[in-house]
């Protein structure tokens, strides 16, 4: 590669890294400032490092409860979606009447403007008696984000060579046995990738979390952060500290599993 090519590559990488990291760094830095400092010196280092902003944010609202609720709703939705996606993808490996229509139906949700469904979803959740519960929120997320998980899992499962299933069938494995022993395990990298995306998406969701909950015991961390930025007042340093606490789990998950995510995303293309 020429020097010009290398320079171009580094320039592109540098720009993308800056676009990704600078807002995050700004957020973290601002979380150590005072309100006045944020406005007087928005891009500089804090004139006085206020580490107690984090303590104050944790003391002001039960962020640990909000985190627990976010994790609970995201985990429930992720488990339901991954299991359902694996089963649906396996079923659609087989040709049957209306299989193409079923595939289209399962993916149709991607095209829907979900915010417009707020009232009917509220109605159903309320009717089921799960309004203002983490379980209710998790079930709604499972429905909303199913197409995303299904698409990832199905794309991955479709790359499994048909000969493997054929060999298992010749060895006497039945329909369910092939799913449990062959299809699901071989699709686990794709399922893990889907799970990570789903966890992050559900964890960061705000609109439904805000409307479908009203108690500390059910509200998520994204709703909790809004308490620092209300209609009548805005405490930015504490809001930023709470935001950092709120996004920490997803950042940590990504850092720990980034190799796995990249490997799983590319593995399918090489099969």
């Amino acid at each position, binding site marked *: 590669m020429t020097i010009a090519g290398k320079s171009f590559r580094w320039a592109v990488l540098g720009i993308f890294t800056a676009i990704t990291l600078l807002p995050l760094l700004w957020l973290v830095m601002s979380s150590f400032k005072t309100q006045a400092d944020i406005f007087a010196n928005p891009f500089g280092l804090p004139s006085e490092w206020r580490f107690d902003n984090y303590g104050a944010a944790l003391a002001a609202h039960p962020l640990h409860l909000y985190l627990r609720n976010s994790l609970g709703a995201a985990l429930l939705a992720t488990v339901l979606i991954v299991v359902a996606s694996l089963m649906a993808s396996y079923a659609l490996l087989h040709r049957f009447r209306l299989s193409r229509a079923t595939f289209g139906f399962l993916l149709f949700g991607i095209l829907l403007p979900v915010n417009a469904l707020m*009232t009917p979803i509220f109605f159903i959740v309320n009717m089921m008696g799960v309004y203002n519960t983490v379980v209710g929120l998790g079930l709604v997320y499972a429905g909303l984000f199913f197409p995303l998980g299904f698409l990832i899992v199905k794309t991955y499962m479709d790359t499994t060579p048909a000969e493997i299933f054929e060999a298992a069938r010749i060895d006497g494995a039945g329909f369910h046995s092939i799913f449990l022993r062959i299809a699901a395990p071989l699709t686990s990298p794709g399922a893990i990738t889907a799970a990570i995306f789903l966890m992050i998406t559900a964890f960061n969701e705000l609109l439904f979390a805000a409307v479908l909950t*009203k108690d500390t015991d059910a509200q998520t961390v994204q709703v909790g952060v809004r308490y620092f930025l209300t209609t009548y007042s805005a405490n*930015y340093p504490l809001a930023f500290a709470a935001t950092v606490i709120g996004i920490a789990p997803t950042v940590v998950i990504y850092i720990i599993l980034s190799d796995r995510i990249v490997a799983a995303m590319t593995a399918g293309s090489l099969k």
Partner: protein
Amino acid sequence: MKRKILAAAGLTAAVALLAGCNSAVPSGGSGGSGTEIEILSNFTSDVSRGKVLDDLIAQFNEENAGKYTVVSKAQPDWPTLQQQIRSSISAGDAPDVFLYNYNPTDLSREESGQLMDWSSHLDDDPEWKARFKQDNLDALTIDGQLAGIPGDQSPTLFYYNTELFEQAGITEFPATWDEYLAAGQKIKDSGVAAISLMTADDSWHTMNAFSYLATAEGGPEAYAPGTDLDSPAITKAADYTKRLLALSTPDAVGGNYAASSSNFLNGQSASIIDGPWLISSIQSTLGDDACKIAVAAAPTFDNGAIEPGYTVTDSLNVWGAAKQSDEEKEEAVVAWMKFFTSNESAVRMAVEGEYPMAVQTELSDADKENASCQMAQVIELANAAPASIVQMARGITTDAQAQLPSLLESLALGQTTPEQFATSLQTANSQ
């Protein structure tokens, strides 16, 4: 084997986590603590009005121990709160008591058949009824039913930083808009923005200025429902709003309420037009220096179109309640609302909560002394106001409301003229 153990441990942890989360099953109905009612509002405990509400609830619960229990559920974000209320009503499960914004062009909540009719309760207690303005009760009476109890109708007034005004050589608040623009230019030349404005969301601060300008030119009916907004008054208001935006902070175009109010509180702008809820932030941000912020009525054009000292107000916020089949619960709701709208509660809300309620509020001399410097001025100005007009954005159609940010931004950036602004606004409002 190891994998199976890990999987089992993971599953157990997940179940335990979700079981813990499941404790959020809503409580309600009658229990050991009497009939329970929930109040849904945006009075979070972070702001002074929320703290006072919590105190009042505690007092009410103590006085009615074993009979009634009131529980506050606060949603910090106003639009989300309104969405929550609309969804609840649509689902046929309106909250027990809730705070919503009354809009005469959208009576979907009042006409849903889900709300309690308060008329008989007020008729049974003339003393209580007399605490509310008849105009407000009339507005809330739809098809002979009183849909709610007036909550607040906050006056928006000029809050200005006397130090920054004096630094620019201005010792008195301007009486006319032309004087204000001249003063604003001096303030801008001294290195500070003259006024905090914003165009995002409902363009609240900008639309307060716009409403004052329109009514100053066209009188109280300048934008009354049914009025053609493609008018000289609206055009002039757009022209002056454009000039005000040029005197504002650089983030006015695209900025939201929080950014705009923070600019004022941090001394980056010298004035703002806002409701009394700002006082709580003034007190907490400026502390001992809070009294350098003074309050004034808006300027006029000195053309006789409207009497000086009038106020533009926020929309009437209303305490609605779910229609109850349980008589005990209805009694509890009425008992709470009588307690909450009593003079004692209203005074506490005004003095400690910086929240003037839409009920007759008689402050004693001691109360006035205890009130913050801004609240005392707000009450004085509101009492002296010869007229009150609801802010323009609160009364136009939802289509027009949705287009306001882009219309104001186009105006600020010179992409549309004041005449085009008025025409576009009329078109949006008539759709």
